[in-house]
């Protein structure tokens, strides 16, 4: 195996964060390439439906400071305030740039970018393109990628980071179409591989979302931050968790229990259906657990919006409901329930996307900057991919252009090759899907919307057992290997956080937020084949923790 190519900057993952990072690095003068196990336009960023948050002030008065405050509060005060302020300040300019590149946004009466209300936001701040905002952004970024003729190693499965002299210097990949390992050297590497929703059986995430980048970083000793913080989206379709956008509630849809009651009046009397996602998911789960659900669901009712509005602004949502639930939302409410959606946690980075390993960066859902803290607001994920993708791209390019060498020691390649050969040669042992399904089902049961100490402890043992059983063939198995390590980190961090904050809810033993002991981030590093827990303070600038009500 020889080094396939060398570049200044290599971006792993080609969703919104990865493509935006690559464009920025290229424009800064670096030689850039992307590595992705699926073609860029197949990326799961395209499934983001509702929109992207920026204080443009097109629908009502708004400013970046209000956006920042909403985000801090939404994060249950675990978000780093410096990172949040940067995001909210740079967001409007970054959205205008997307529009100048050709993003097909929906429009206001006076021809500006349209914005809709979203959960826990003080103003209608979510810029949107009907209910296909992510798709529109993926398209426009891929168009810009094409214009710049950037190299994409597409259908290359990134498996292992190359570290030499305490620097990240490339990535070893499995070429999915031609087979074989390929090494791509780089002065800087940006991880933009998205989330790990496939840890759960009911998830909005694509099959591709197996947390590859997080696990690769973990394996070279880099810390993962706030891994216990997995967001459950309140409106996903049974049985597999297909996403129904928060935009439905932004447009005015109701959530009803089996008695036809808008139950949120008992949980979030002011914001109602536009409360924060963690709040609504808990409310739904409580209704379902207390017997007021409808076959394990609650009902999302948008009939009162009328056919015209549904067809114009929620066309894709109607199509999803009809295809996957057999329900036409013009006539019937859609059965929905909480499903695993977004990882607030990820690779620990600073506000330029830098990790603790020189030359290694991360952006987007794979990273934890942290702008979302313990709970992300709808519409902030796409914004983070763009703004922090851009920043990571800029810094990675600058570093690469001021450093000259790339070295990939042969021993690294040989090791990888040997390990892969062993995997391929294995003919006995379990098929990966059994372990995968067991992991996904038990995570849902034991590390879901509500968490109990004894269940989390049991899950920890269960994962350890699964890791022992884990052995097998190529890609699916490599992905599963990543997931098992991430699940381990999540359980370790979740048990250590003995409080309820944002997505981490422990109503049975620690029902309250505990700012005295736990207003801090968890960090998990991998040491000698086992997770090691550490803590990191929250960066605060303007806002002290308050009681959080909606």
């Amino acid at each position, binding site marked *: 195996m020889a080094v396939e190519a060398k570049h200044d900057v290599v971006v792993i993952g080609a969703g919104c964060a990865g493509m935006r990072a690559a464009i920025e690095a290229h424009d800064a003068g670096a030689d850039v390439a992307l590595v992705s196990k699926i073609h860029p336009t197949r990326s799961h960023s395209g*499934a983001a439906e509702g929109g992207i948050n920026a204080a443009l002030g097109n629908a009502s008065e708004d400013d970046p400071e209000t956006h920042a405050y909403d985000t801090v509060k939404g994060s249950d005060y675990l978000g780093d305030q410096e990172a949040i302020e940067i995001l909210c300040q740079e967001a409007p300019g970054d959205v205008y740039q997307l529009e100048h590149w050709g993003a097909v946004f929906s*429009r206001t009466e006076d021809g500006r970018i349209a914005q809709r209300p979203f959960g826990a936001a003080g103003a209608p701040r979510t810029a949107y393109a009907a209910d*296909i905002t992510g798709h529109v952004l993926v398209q426009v970024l891929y168009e810009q990628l094409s214009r710049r003729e950037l190299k994409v190693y597409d259908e290359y499965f990134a498996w292992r980071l190359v570290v030499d002299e305490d620097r990240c210097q490339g990535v070893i990949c499995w070429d999915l*179409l031609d087979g074989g390992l390929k090494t791509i050297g780089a002065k800087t590497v940006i991880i933009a591989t998205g989330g790990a929703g496939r840890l759960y059986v009911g998830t909005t995430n694509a099959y591709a979302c197996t947390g590859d980048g997080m696990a690769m970083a973990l394996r070279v000793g880099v810390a993962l931050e706030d891994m216990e913080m997995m967001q459950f989206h309140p409106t996903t379709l049974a049985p597999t968790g297909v996403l129904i956008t928060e935009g439905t509630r932004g447009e005015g849809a109701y959530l009803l229990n089996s008695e036809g009651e808008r139950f949120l009046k008992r949980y979030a009397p002011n914001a109602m259906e536009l409360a924060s996602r963690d709040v609504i998911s808990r409310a739904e789960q409580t209704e379902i657990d207390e017997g007021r659900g409808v076959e394990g669901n609650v009902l999302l009712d948008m009939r009162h919006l009328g056919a*015209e509005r549904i067809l114009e602004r929620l066309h894709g949502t109607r199509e999803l409901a009809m295809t996957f639930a057999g329900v036409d939302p013009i006539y019937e409410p859609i059965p929905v329930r909480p499903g695993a959606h977004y990882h607030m946690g990820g690779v620990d980075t600073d506000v330029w996307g830098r990790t603790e390993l020189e030359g290694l960066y991360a952006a987007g859902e794979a990273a934890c900057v942290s702008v979302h803290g313990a709970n992300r607001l709808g519409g902030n994920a796409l914004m983070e991919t763009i703004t922090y993708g851009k920043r990571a791209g800029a810094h990675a390019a600058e570093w690469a252009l001021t450093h000259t060498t790339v070295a990939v020691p042969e021993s690294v390649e040989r090791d990888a090759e040997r390990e892969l050969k062993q995997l391929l040669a294995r003919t006995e042992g379990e098929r990966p*899907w059994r372990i995968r399904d067991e992991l996904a089902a038990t995570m*849902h049961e034991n590390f879901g919307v509500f968490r109990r100490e004894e269940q989390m402890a049991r899950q920890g043992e269960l994962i350890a057992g699964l890791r022992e059983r884990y052995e097998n063939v190529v890609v699916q198995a490599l992905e599963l290997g990543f997931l098992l390590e991430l699940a381990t980190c999540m359980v370790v961090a979740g048990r250590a956080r003995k409080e309820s904050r944002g997505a981490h809810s422990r109503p049975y033993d620690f029902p309250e937020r505990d700012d005295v002991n736990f207003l801090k981030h968890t960090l998990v590093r991998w040491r000698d084949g086992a997770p090691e827990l550490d803590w990191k303070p929250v960066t605060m600038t303007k806002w002290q923790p308050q009681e959080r009500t909606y």
Partner: protein
Amino acid sequence: MSEAILYTDSPTMDVRLKIWRFDSTTGDRELKEYEVEAPEWATLLDVLDIIKDRVDGSLAYRKSCRMMICGSCGMRMDGGAVLACKTRMADIVASGRVPTISAMGNLPIVKDLVVDMTPFWSKFRAIGPWLRPGYDRPDDGKEYRISQERMNVIHKESLCINCGCCVSECNAMESDPEFLGPQALAKGMRFVGDPRDAGTVERLEDYNDSHGIWDCTRCYYCNERCPKGVDPRDAIAKLGAESIKHGIDRDMGAKHAKWFVKSAMTTGWLREAELVPKTQGIVSAIKQTGFALELARHGKVPPPFPPHVAERVKEARLLYDLVKEQGRDGALGIVQGEHALARIEFLEEHGARLNAPEIQPGVEPPHAEG
């Protein structure tokens, strides 16, 4: 137990299907039949997953989002392109049908259901798929000011997820593999119709070259098979209309189309005898005189003299004037495809006012007043 069965108590069904297996390294091709138990809500993609997990791990296909947005899982079912994740199996099973699954058409097969998308993407790139900024960039650095009505012109084209289903079914591409094809041209219309794009004329010139818009045979299979309602054939028609509006009519196809309009306006019929000279030119027409006379002798074309004028030709002329008056030039003059018509009917039935994106700006749809 599968992931699906663990998660729901859904009743199951026995699914049977045949899959064309293919190995490009050996060239071996084999139609294999499978039978598996799947939950009743299973899609074709879920069934393939069950087969791959439990029956044959070597089965190759692409997948990712399983919610009709990533465009990975295009393949053929009984000879027509579908997205596997959008295809529910229950009705097929109930009907007793045993569908045959194969790789998409018009693209080389790599393995089983995986095709080489390289030709697809090279055509995508050939149309210059990025905005060429030009005019009216706002001084304040903010967004361009564009009405929703104006953006609606490219609404359908911007729904495209690059799955390749249209390309798979394209008849023109089958006879001319160089044809730019429905996906690339729909993408082209996405820019031609965008008021922010300053490259309209250059684009239209490019798309009018050989292997361009006039190669389309108008079979409408692309509209039929597109899983997202993009209606690529309509986009190609819009490009044709925009070309003629901009005076780009050098291609026979354009001349052909123009003569149809002229014929209908003057006589209410197609003036077939003049069609060849008007489309292909005098020289070509003379060369084909013998053939034309043969056709006339067998009654296949009406004699050119006396001119054959329809009884109610005035109506045809009025329609022509009406379209002109409404300013439905270029793309705006194109009547939309079946998806749009279905939607109009739906709205009419349910008494909603028409304001749907499929409808062109400023124009009442053809039969909205009924």
